[in-house]
């Protein structure tokens, strides 16, 4: 069975901290994505990656960066966490591309105090 694993289910950080959210997939997918989900706004794409060491900005990349050193792992980095980055973060992967079926992790609920 396919699996996308996010390292933390819940995370509480302080304003100004550097935050790492980790995502690992075991399906040998080329494409990986980070979304954030906020009430009333749906899911919004932060960054995505087509291949190792490749990254592309999504719709709301400001305040975030990503790292993809290995095919199976895609990390989202909040360089200096702010309260408006409190959100549910969802990682996803796909085989054929971002416009095809996505497999999602369980999500990380991040609270920045």
């Amino acid at each position: 069975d396919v699996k996308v694993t996010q390292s933390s289910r819940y995370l509480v950080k302080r304003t100004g901290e550097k935050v790492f959210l980790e995502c690992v997939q075991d399906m040998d997918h080329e494409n990986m994505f980070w979304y954030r989900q906020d009430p009333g706004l749906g899911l919004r794409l932060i960054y995505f990656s087509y291949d190792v060491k490749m990254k592309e900005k999504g719709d709301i990349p400001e305040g975030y960066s990503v790292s993809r050193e290995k095919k199976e792992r895609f990390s989202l980095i909040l360089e200096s966490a702010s309260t408006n980055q409190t959100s549910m973060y969802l990682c996803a992967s796909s085989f054929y591309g971002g416009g095809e079926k996505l497999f999602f992790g369980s999500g990380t609920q991040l609270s920045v105090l």
Partner: protein
Amino acid sequence: SQQGEEDPQALSIQEGENATMNCSYKTSINNLQWYRQNSGRGLVHLILIRSNEREKHSGRLRVTLDTSKKSSSLLITASRAADTASYFCATATGTASKLTFGTGTRLQVTL
């Protein structure tokens, strides 16, 4: 701006009834997908319908697509309490290799 907008925002039905959710979008699409999200969890893919298809079935799910009206509907027949979740439509457009999600319909199925 959102590409897909679901309607209604919330729906409450009794077990055994059918549930219908609608999605409208603004620009031409390559495909449209429906996902389910149980409370506080990740999304699960339900069904994908391509722009040249009009109807698709998967178990108790039936999806229709009307490209002339830029709309889609998801029908869940004989609903169960376990169908309680939020349902999202997502569209893939042009050459952009990404999905744009709507804000979701919250479905509550009561016994």
